[in-house]
């Protein structure tokens, strides 16, 4: 897998830490934030290749956070996760610029596959 750094943001720490553990199997550097505010603070200190954002969070939803993160890191690839999938939210997420939209809990192998592909894309882009 290409090198890179991933930010996982989820207000449910159990789920977020599970995602981090899944990705850690591939020796990817993964940071975890339990709130959008925490995520924005971490993104001020660190550049990320991929962000995995829960869609429904208190205060700021995952799409709003995606736009906020991209203001500082325009090439950031984003995967949106949701426990409440629907064609409408899928359409909104993808047309607003998410690279992928996945249902929670996501299949570990699928998530690893998707993150590997996004990191490979990121490593090839200027």
């Amino acid at each position, binding site marked *: 897998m290409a090198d890179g750094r991933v930010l996982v943001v989820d207000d449910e720490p159990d789920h977020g830490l599970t995602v981090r553990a899944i990705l850690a199997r591939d020796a990817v550097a993964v940071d975890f934030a339990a709130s959008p505010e925490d995520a924005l603070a971490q993104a001020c200190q660190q550049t990320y290749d991929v962000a995995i954002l829960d869609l429904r969070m208190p205060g700021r939803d995952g799409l709003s956070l995606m736009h906020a993160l991209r203001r500082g890191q325009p090439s950031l690839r984003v995967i949106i996760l949701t426990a409440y999938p629907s064609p409408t*939210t899928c359409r909104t997420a*993808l047309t607003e610029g998410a690279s*992928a939209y996945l249902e929670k809990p996501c299949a570990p*192998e699928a998530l690893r*596959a998707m993150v590997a*592909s996004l990191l490979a894309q990121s490593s090839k882009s200027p």
Partner: protein
Amino acid sequence: MADRIAQVLADQIEAICANASARLTGRAEFAGDQRHLAAALSTLAAALIDAARDDQPERLSDAALALGRDDGDPCRGYGRVQLLLDVLCSESVEALRRVVLGSEGKEASARLRGLLGPAMLGLADLCRQTDQAGPPEAGAERGS
């Protein structure tokens, strides 16, 4: 390695599809559509074997995109095919792990994920492009 992966998957294709079908049968996305589910799984599994044998991720991506295009609503199609790929990925990796062990098994699993990742991202691109060309319904629901 490519031939080995393809052979393991081909040898276990019936079990992989049966397990995947059992996991998806209760899903609302496939309710009342079991024949479609079986046919789509079979198509994707065959494409996965071809992709593995020739080390050509495009084989799987093309099959997934064709299934996604068949759906009138690109985002509903995305969700359905995405689910199929998720489960097919899990079952295929499990099948590989039972046969290919140790470091060779890890390499085989990584190669398999390397075939599935582009297909999943390609589906998202298809949904995005089709929707931007003409969304089937107005309005947006956020924050779910």
